[in-house]
């Protein structure tokens, strides 16, 4: 009896440790995604081309973490049969890394578009786009903090933040779409349209992360 409870106890601590390890990897991946987003921002608004080159390397590393975390989660779920919050945590983390990976992908896309945009003079609505990008970064940071703190309430708060980004997207879309007498080629406007779309998607993924954190803690999906 004692022997059995001891082994199960050591299994539990083993599981705890493994879960913690996975959590740590997710946070690491989060820092990389955040950095990637920041670099794409610099590339787009400060025209820092070096930053753009670094994003590609970061993206490779993010991908590696993504695959490894997914595998680790699956292994832990099958071999250690976790219950309750541990199970919710692992299954939510599996989804969450996909959100993170998507944000990283979008950051890379934005960088590529920024490199094309360098050849054109800055558009008049660049300030608004910059504010939108900063706001999306703030949302990502908020969702990562929520993940670190396992804060159930954060999900709702981030959703409110997301509304602001959606409004900004609508506003900028109208501004770009209803522009008349465009001088020269339309590429910069096209690129800006795609960029704000990407930013809006990134904010959505950040919102998802917040919601998944709420699910981990409360077990309720919204």
């Amino acid at each position, binding site marked *: 009896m004692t022997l059995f409870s001891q082994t199960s106890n050591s299994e539990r601590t083993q599981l705890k440790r493994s879960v913690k390890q996975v959590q740590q990897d997710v946070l690491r991946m989060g820092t990389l995604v955040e*950095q990637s987003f920041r670099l794409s921002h610099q590339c787009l608004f400060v025209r820092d081309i*070096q930053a753009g080159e670094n994003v590609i390397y970061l993206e490779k590393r993010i991908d590696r973490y993504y695959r490894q975390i997914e595998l680790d989660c699956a292994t832990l779920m099958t071999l250690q049969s976790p219950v309750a919050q541990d199970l919710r945590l692992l299954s939510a983390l599996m989804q969450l890394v996909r959100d993170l990976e998507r944000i990283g992908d979008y950051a890379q896309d934005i960088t590529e578009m920024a490199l094309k945009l360098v050849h054109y003079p800055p558009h008049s609505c660049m300030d608004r786009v910059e504010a939108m990008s900063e706001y999306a970064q703030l949302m*990502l940071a908020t969702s*990562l903090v929520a993940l*670190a703190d396992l*804060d159930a309430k954060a999900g709702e708060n981030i959703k409110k933040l997301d509304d*602001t980004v959606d409004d900004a997207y609508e506003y900028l879309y109208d501004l770009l779409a209803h522009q008349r007498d465009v001088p020269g080629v339309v590429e910069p406007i096209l690129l800006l349209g795609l960029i704000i779309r990407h930013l809006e998607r990134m904010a959505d993924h950040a919102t998802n992360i917040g919601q998944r954190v709420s699910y981990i803690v409360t077990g309720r999906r919204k």
Partner: protein
Amino acid sequence: MAGVEFIIGLTVGLGVCVWQHYHWKKRLKKLIKSVSNQDDRSISMPPLYLLRREVDKLDWERRQAVQERDNWQRLIDRAPIGYLLVDEENQLLWCNQQARTLLKLDRWRWGEVRLLLELVRSYELDLLIERTRKSQQSQEKEWVFYFTRHASAQDEDFPSFDNQVSSKTVQAIALCGHSFPLPGRQVGVFLINRQPIVELSRSRDRTVSDLSHELKTPLTSISLVAENLLDRLQNPERRWVEQMLKETNRLTNLVQEWLELTRLEADPTKVLKYESINVHEIIDSVWQTLEPIAKKKQVTLTQIGDYSISIDGDKSRLIQVFLNLLDNALKHSPVEGEIVVSLDSDCCKLEESREDEVSSIEPQVIIDIVDSGTGFVSSDIPHVFERLYRGERSRNRKASDLSGSGLGLAIVQEIIQAHGGFIEAKNHPDLGGAWLRVKLPCDPKNPI
């Protein structure tokens, strides 16, 4: 009869008692001896008293140690540099006030044990700690820590879109971390704020380039005036003006090089105009310009390797690179010396993939330039690419030879880096001369 039995019993009992007491005393003495570092003289005192004294002493020492530990802890807590203590599972055990300010650790509470990554989202810091633990050696690293503001749950009114623009979302602070492995696979990290230094050096560079810009115009007119004067003067005045003209030109060069360097540094990629260039041809043409000096010194150039290698690069800038490098090599070669330039393309070599560097398979060109001089002084090697740095002894030029500006290698490095390449300086193990190795990507869009 009963009396005799009683006495025998009593004697045996007493004997056992005495024997036990004796043994107990002996053990006690041994124990005292083992904990006490005093001489044997006082051991004749009653053991219980000795024990009491030892316990008191140990207690006093313990309190002393606690006091000392508290003092150290308080000192470190208020130290002007940051300190973090991380356990083997990367959990933050303790950090001081400065670390809290530098890393914006406002969510950490005293005595709380949490994953460091939950509190500080810095990949670099995490990597530094992991490396220290793995290698069990102290490490040093400089990086820029970015802190992105987040909306805290307590805030009732969220940052709105408009006031968002006014307050900065992302803050940057340049840090230098020194990490040390501790027993139990713990790691201690000292953090130094480099931000003031970074800002200071930036403002210094700006000042110097502003100053250079201001110096340019008067210098040009001075040299014009001097040139005009030359035709109207006889010796000895003519010689003085010649000297003046030479020095003025030197100053003009210095100013121009500095401005060029600043421009390259500020926006490296914008300044470059890319075209396809044959490396061998460039080196050849550079050598032709240097030929007169080389002939005087009877120095020969040997080129080995693949002559067909060509890369995408800025022609005039690369000419300057090889001019500076070969000119240096020429200056430091002895009479009848030899300069060896070897070209090698490295198209399919896999760079060793380290943990923080993604393996690169980008094709690159490696150009080695080795002179037959005495080489660098080893203490100079880390500084040779610094602006205005001059080697201490052997590579220091004689007063008559002071023609360089001290910016040559700095410019070389700046140009190479703008091309996405890399340059390193060392001494050749066999030939003994200075060895400069330039690595350039064949396609500059894929930097090494």
